[in-house]
Every structure is written in structure tokens, then in C-alpha cells.
């Protein structure tokens, strides 16, 4: 069992927010998904106060060993999520982490307050990679701004707060420190790296409907490991590490870097059950290479 700021997890592998739709996957794969659910907690995609349609297509661009996406956080909004999705997500065999985003402290406060009394919501993850309406930068890239937002949000919920840090900053350890000081119960990283995808046939025009996007996948793994190490060395709260994890060995690298748990994102696109394989590989890998007990995990039942 792993304790992630109060959540008791069967094993250390979560999904990255926005990279797995358990409701759609349940339709595509049936009960088999629930019988062998790959993640020890399910992280919802980012929910906003109002519904969002998301960005115009194309939204995907494949890069060397990576993916640039400009999905644009489509979601049903708080009300649609609570009424339509929450009941189905509550039926999953694992704790639910609801990921929320707001462009102002007021929006985030409204979101966490509305989720606070839903016992189905085991924890709340704040996505602070949202561009600040004023500066265009990620809210989470400025430690002071991040701390101010958190101080406003923290008192409004009893749920553990996980802050999903932005990697697009000069000193991620400093923003992590600011998050911890302002009451974050855990931090997660990395989110996607700001990236641009040119049109494959017309170099002068953008490929993505939204113009720019974010890079994920194996291409960012070495950057993610550097940031996770820097953050884990700085803060006392648990760290959820992610960015290009494809194998159990990669997961072990993030755990060794100081992460308490890891998340699988893009790799799930290549295989919906990738996280199950990664969990097994991690178990075997740790068994063989006798890495610190703290990282021991249970074998998948499958």
C-alpha cells in the first residue's frame, strides 16, 4: 500500500489527467476494464466551471518520440461533470482524483467548494498550467501568483489538494516550494512542455487549430526526470512524477528520483493497458534490482 497524501493506493501507477477517459474506455472495452483497472487511482480530465468545447481540430501532431496536443480542455463544466460523469467515475474500483482548472482564484474556489462535499472525490488536483489571462504565462509559472491562488483555495476544502505544476518555468523547485508553503498536500509534474507544430506541407502555417500546443511522451522524459528530482529534493510533500513513462524501468527511474507515485499518459494511447504492463515490469524490475523497499509494489493480480 502506498500513502499519497491520505489516499491509500494499491500500487504507485496513476493516469495523467486528460489521457484516459474511463467512461469511454468502459464502453470500448466493457467490464474487462474494471476487472483489470490499470491505475491505483483515477485522475479525471481537467474540469472547468463552465463547459468548454475545446480547440478546433487538428488537435494532434506527432513528433519524434512525442506528441504535441492542443486539445483545449474540453469538458462538460462543473455541473455536467457532477451530474453525468461523477456517478460513473464513482463506480470505478479505485479512488477518484478530480482535476480542476480556473483562470482566477475565484473560479478555483468555486470549483473546490462544489467538490468538497462529494465523498466520491478522494482528492482534488489543481491544474495551474492554465495561461494567465493577463500575462499569457501559466499561472503556475510565478511562485507568488501560485501561492496567492493556493492560499485562497486551500481553506475551502477538506480534500487533499494536489498541485499539478507547470514545467514551463525557470525554477520548478521554487514553484513547488511555494505550493507546499501555501498548503498543497502533494505536487504532480510534469505537464506538457509548450511546443509548436508546423504544418507538414506548409512550413509557414501552423498545423494545430489552436496554433500552439504542449509536448508529451518519451521525448520529454529526461526533462521530466530532472524536474521531478529537483522538486522532490526541495519539498516534503509527496510528488507524483510523470512524463514519457513507457516501461517499468522508467517508472523506477521516477520513483528513484523521489516520486511517491507515477502517472502514465501518452503511453496509454499506444496501448490502453500499458499501465498494467508497466506495473508488472516495475514489480519485476524492483524485485530483480533490489531497489529501496519504499518502492516495493504489489504484483498485478492479472
Amino acid at each position: 500500500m502506498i500513502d499519497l497524501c491520505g489516499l491509500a493506493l494499491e500500487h504507485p501507477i496513476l493516469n495523467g489527467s486528460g489521457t484516459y477517459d474511463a467512461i469511454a474506455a468502459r464502453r470500448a472495452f466493457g467490464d474487462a476494464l474494471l476487472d483489470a483497472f490499470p491505475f491505483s487511482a483515477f485522475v479525471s480530465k481537467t474540469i472547468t466551471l463552465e463547459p468548454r468545447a475545446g480547440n478546433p481540430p487538428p488537435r494532434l501532431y506527432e513528433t519524434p518520440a512525442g506528441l504535441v496536443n492542443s486539445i483545449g480542455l474540453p469538458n462538460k463544466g462543473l455541473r455536467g461533470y457532477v451530474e453525468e460523469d461523477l456517478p460513473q467515475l464513482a463506480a470505478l474500483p479505485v479512488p477518484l482524483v478530480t482535476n480542476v482548472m480556473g483562470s482566477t482564484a475565484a473560479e478555483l474556489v468555486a470549483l473546490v467548494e462544489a467538490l468538497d462535499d462529494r465523498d466520491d472525490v478522494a482528492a482534488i488536483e489543481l491544474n495551474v498550467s492554465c495561461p494567465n489571462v493577463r500575462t499569457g504565462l501559466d499561472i503556475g509559472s510565478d511562485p507568488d501568483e501560485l501561492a496567492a491562488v493556493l492560499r485562497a483555495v486551500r481553506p475551502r476544502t477538506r480534500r487533499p489538494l494536489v498541485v499539478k505544476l507547470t514545467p514551463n518555468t525557470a525554477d520548478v523547485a521554487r514553484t513547488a516550494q511555494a505550493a507546499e508553503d501555501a498548503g498543497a498536500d502533494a505536487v504532480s509534474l510534469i505537464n506538457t512542455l509548450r511546443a509548436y507544430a508546423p504544418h507538414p506541407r506548409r512550413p509557414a502555417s501552423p498545423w494545430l487549430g489552436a496554433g500552439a500546443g504542449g509536448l508529451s511522451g518519451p521525448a520529454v522524459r529526461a526533462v521530466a526526470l530532472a524536474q521531478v528530482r529537483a522538486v522532490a529534493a526541495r519539498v516534503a510533500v509527496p510528488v507524483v512524477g510523470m512524463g514519457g513513462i513507457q516501461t517499468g524501468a522508467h517508472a523506477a527511474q521516477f520513483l528513484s528520483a523521489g516520486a511517491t507515485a507515477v502517472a502514465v499518459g501518452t503511453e496509454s494511447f499506444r496501448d490502453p493497458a500499458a499501465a498494467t504492463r508497466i506495473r508488472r515490469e516495475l514489480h519485476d524490475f524492483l524485485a530483480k534490482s533490489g531497489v529501496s523497499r519504499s518502492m516495493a509494489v504489489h504484483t498485478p493480480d492479472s
Partner: protein
Amino acid sequence: MSVAPFGRRTLAVAQRRALGPYVALTAPDPDGPAPEPGQFYMLAAAQRWGGGDDERPFLPRAFSVMRAGPAGLEFLLEVVGPGTARLCELGPGDGLHVVGPLGLGFDPPDEGRRALLCGGGAGIAPLAIWQDALLAAGRPAAALIGFRDGAHARAGVLLANPRVATDDGSTGHHGLVTELLESELDADPDAAIYACGPPAMLEAVRALAARRAVPAQLALEAGMACGFGACFGCVVPLAGGGYARTCVDGPVLDAAALAEVPAA
């Protein structure tokens, strides 16, 4: 809709067949359910997927099932980039990663309406399995298919007595397949259109169906990362505003539901 086994499985390619410039791959799928016409699979070569000069492909690629039977799953591939190029190299014994069957397929036409199957290029693939099903059910299923030229038109053998159009007139009607569709609708408007092909062709079919008030189901293509609703990357704009995910709300969508068929 057939539910897919959870997770990626690896099949062994049994046969590789060239049909003009297209390649038909056959792979037995012992553990998979029978797919429904219009469903698709995410495919990747088990060996050496990626790398090469542009280091792509990285993600799997989506392909409609062309036929499924005792011999296995059949796919029809056209080389348009690194992923299709790699898949078209596969031969007997090579490993093929698959996830599927995925998505929502075709719905049968209402009583009294005859199916008109309208395909362009590799887009004829889902129409082959759909024509089999309709004919087996004793329903008419005329196939109208268009190709660039005679070489490509050789893939026409995949359908039962099709009417063929080619852009260069080297085979069949000299012109667009949508012209054949118009003439069929002139002859008998009580039809239900099932179309798959390049975006421009599907957009023409959508507009035509709307003008003629004929029901049409379009098997759409879109860039996909996952194929099972996880990434929200494969969206098409809806007539009522907002977007639908091609992989889970489609790939077969009612033409009337679409704002337009976006260009690739």
C-alpha cells in the same frame, strides 16, 4: 457495437496482397470478437515502429476493417506516410499490434430504402464488409467507387459488381464518383447513402445528401492518437455546435449531424 478485448494484442500477419498500389493485409485474430461493419482497429508494426529519418511513426494508426472471417481480419492500406509505409512492408509471420474493434459502425437502411455504397480510394475498405452484410441479409447494396486512375481501380475487385469512376477516365466513368451517386439518386431517390473516402468526397456527399434530403452515413477519418476516447484529439465539428470524437462517437456518423467534413 462489438466490444474490444482490453489492451493491445499482437497478431501474426498471414498474408500480404498487392491490389494495384494498395496493400491488403490479413491477420488471424483468435482472441478478438467479430467486428461490425464500419468499426476500425488501431494498428502498429510490432517491430521497428518509429525511427527512420523523421523518427515517426510513434503512435498507432487507425484502419477500418475491410473483411473479417475464418482467414482473419483484413485491412486495405494505402501508403501516405511513415506509418502506412511501415505497415505495408509487413509480410507473413510479422507481428501486428492491434487494439479493437473500436467505434460505432453502420446502421442498416430503413425498410424501403436501398443502400448506395459510395467509396473513394482506400475508403472502399469498410464498404466491402458492409456490402457483404447487406447482401447476406438479402438487401440490395449497390457499390459506386471512385479512384485516381485504372491502377488504383484494380482494388475495385473487393466489391460486388461496382460502378467505377476514375479521375482520368482510364477505367469506367470519367469523373467523380459523386456524379455516379447523383445519377443513382435521379433514378431512385429512396436510397440510404453509406460513404467513405477522402474528406473532399465526403463533404460533397454530405452536401448532396442534404440537398436531396437523403439519409447518409459517413465513415470519417481523423488524426487519432488513441482510438478509444482517451485523448480527445480526433474531433469533428457538429452541426449543432461543439465537437464529436470520431473514434467513440463515430467513425460512422450521420451526415446530418455534421457541420462539415473537415479537410485533412
